[in-house]
């Protein structure tokens, strides 16, 4: 067997390699997405201590007996708090992404499928929302409604959907140009049925991949908003808020902000790698 000398050498990037090679790794990474979700849901069972009540001395460093990751400024177990924080952050991010996906997806779907002036109006509206400095709007909304995780999530959701609207609309436009939609029309399928059966399922892979990649962004955005004082209210746990609120301790008791900070990082990393892996798996299936 010859080597690959017949093959031209490539400049840095390879053209897309078949996903088959990374199949196992991809499955593991996608599995991580599920695992994190399980951890988030099972925080109650996994956490050794109450996340709200002080259970030990203040600012115990990691490795202290009974407190694997140490305790925070008021003596709460950081491991428990982080596990509950994962629950709050991950589920919040899922919620935002889901709302964005549903609302933005619906707008995108309708715009893409309808075309014409409906498309124009909806997309100009989307553009307008995209032009809004998102963080600012979230800040304004939270300021108006008062802080709190639910309000923050509402604020983020309002600026989050346009992105999905654009992506789904693009996907639907591409799908709608395919003959199968024309064929379905000729086959007598109603508009609703075409939307539901012949367009919507085609957007699912893109939507899922975009959404899972996006979870990490939302986790980070939540952290950023907590940094400027918007977000989960104390004493309820949330990773971003816990990191941001303890930031003044970074030099004196580094673990208090760093433990939840690393958890943010891990969640975001899992979302990123998992999203990529999901794309790989779905591409491989096509």
């Amino acid at each position, binding site marked *: *067997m*010859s080597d*690959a*000398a*017949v*093959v*031209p*050498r*490539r400049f840095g990037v*390879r*053209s*897309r*390699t*078949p996903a088959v090679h990374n199949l196992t790794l991809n499955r593991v990474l996608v599995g991580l997405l599920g695992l994190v979700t399980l951890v988030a849901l099972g925080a109650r069972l996994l956490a050794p201590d109450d996340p709200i009540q002080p259970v030990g001395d203040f600012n115990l460093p990691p490795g202290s007996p009974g407190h694997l990751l140490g305790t925070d400024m008021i003596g709460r177990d950081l491991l428990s708090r982080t596990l509950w924080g994962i629950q709050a952050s991950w589920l919040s991010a899922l919620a935002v992404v889901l709302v964005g996906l549903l609302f933005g997806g619906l707008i995108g779907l309708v715009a893409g499928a309808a075309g014409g002036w409906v498309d124009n109006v909806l997309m100009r509206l989307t553009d307008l929302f995209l032009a809004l400095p998102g963080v600012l709007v979230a800040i304004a909304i939270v300021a108006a409604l008062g802080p709190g995780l639910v309000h923050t999530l509402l604020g983020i959701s309002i600026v989050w959907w346009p992105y999905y609207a654009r992506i789904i609309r693009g996907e639907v436009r591409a799908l709608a140009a*395919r*003959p*199968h939609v*024309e*064929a*379905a*029309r*000729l*086959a*007598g*399928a109603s508009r609703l*049925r075409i939307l539901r*059966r*012949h367009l919507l*399922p*085609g957007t699912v892979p893109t939507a899922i991949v975009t959404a899972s990649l996006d979870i990490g962004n939302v986790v980070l955005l939540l952290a950023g908003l907590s940094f400027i004082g918007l977000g989960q209210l104390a004493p309820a746990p949330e990773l971003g808020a816990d990191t941001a609120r303890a930031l003044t301790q970074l030099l004196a008791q580094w673990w208090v902000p760093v433990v939840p900070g690393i958890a943010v990082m891990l969640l975001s990393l899992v979302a990123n790698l998992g999203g990529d892996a999901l794309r790989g798996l779905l591409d491989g299936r096509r």
Partner: protein
Amino acid sequence: MIASVDDLHVSLRGNPVLRGVSLSVRPGEILGLVGESGSGKSVLALTLMGLLPPDAHPQVTGTVEVAGVDMMHGSAAAHRGVRRRELGVIFQDPMTSLNPTMRIGRQITEVTRDTDRAVQLLEHVGVADAAVRLRVYPHELSGGLRQRVMTAIAVAGRPSLIIADEPTTALDVTVQAQVLSLLRDLRDEYGCSVLFITHDLAVAAQITDRIGVLYAGRLAELGPTRELLAHPTHPYTAGLLRSRLSLTTPRGRELPTLPAEAGPRGPGCAYHTRCPLAVDRCATEQPPLVGDEHQRACWRDISDMPDGTSAAEPGELGPAVEGSAVVRLHNIRCDFKLRNGWRRAGTLKALDGVDLEVAPGEAVSIVGESGSGKSTLLRVIAGLIPPTGGTREVTGGTQMVFQDAGSSLTPWLTIGELLRERLLPLKLSRAEQDQRVRDALTKIGLPATVATARPRQLSGGQRQRVALARATIVPPAVLLCDEPTSALDASLAASVLNLIRQLRADLGMAVVFVTHDLAVARLMGDRIVVMTGGHIAETGPADDLVSHPQADYTKTLLAAVPEIAI
């Protein structure tokens, strides 16, 4: 020898594609390489160029030599040198094969490094206003011009070998004829060799000196063009020739087809499951390619080949039913507003006053080149496009079969779901629906189990059959066919055409069949409508129109149809 391969084996992604090909291109000759899709002809071309896609993880054995350079081993720079100095390449799709973001001139001067020469070359390949055209981008040119530019690039480096991989497949017949003659002229002028790859024997017949017939990664037969076509010595070649649709193929009979490949490929001749001559030995032992100037790889003697025509039964071409027309178009006009971003950039008159009537049960073929408005007309009949002007009356339902069956079936729905969708208005019970689906599948010659499959699990031919089943599960008054066979290999195409004729006869529906191929148009239509530039050039009974064309345009079209003149 300009180029030669010896005992070449290539596997891509672990699947053998070429399985021992030995072939050489002689100086100054045009060697045709003919085979159906998947036969490995394009892979052979890529191997010669040293451009097999690395992500397919190619495994290659044997020898490959171009202009004395080993294209399998050796440095990438050496291979590049060969490509630059010795090879010119023309690919099938000039739209995608030219860099869309680079001006034509730059793409030529990349090879010539000289603008004047680029102008010369363009003039040479028949591009008018060459100096001006240097400044344009590929998308601003027509398909024919693009392929001429491709050709200019191919000859720009004064290569000793031009590899033309299906260079005319995407082109209209009239343009195809021009490109073929251009290639021949260039060969004569530059004295280079041409490796001409095509799936169409007739096209190969127009231009080549020798023809190699490739089947499943092996050469089935190789010989001088005239001799090979006149006296094919391999049953596959013979079958191909027989199943070819031409302007003289009998209209009234079922079209001859090759049997489909059945069962896995064994160690023997890959063709044996389809071969009328096959004996036990064929299944177990690979026949070698033997002979001198005319070589063949078959254990049997061709004289034992049964006469194909005798096997075909008369087709039941139902005559048109008298009565009021099912389709009545009067002075149909259809304008497309061209948009350039947000700006109106002009109007395209896709249809410009078309009158057409189709009687119940009548078969009408609409023939024309790309841009003639034939597909638009079909869509107007189907009601997919509202006409800008004129009146459209269609009684009874219409259904349509598209060119690319793969993309006309919703990928994530099962065949069963797709078929049932048409039954929805009938409000049948689930059991009745299932029964209708089974019946429909049986009717098109597919097992009922296909109902649970998704389109990507089917072959191209099967998908087109499913598309037909969907169109006819509730019989329409008119079946509209938009080049349903142009993406299929000849034999498969013939069987789909047979199926359409069968269904038409069974269901008594009218058929409007759009095609760019006059031979197919003649076979499928009682009447042929010739379109050009958005209007009807000529219309008439199929045989009359082909034998006594009235309009100049029809004559041009007929003249351009490649025929094997033996």
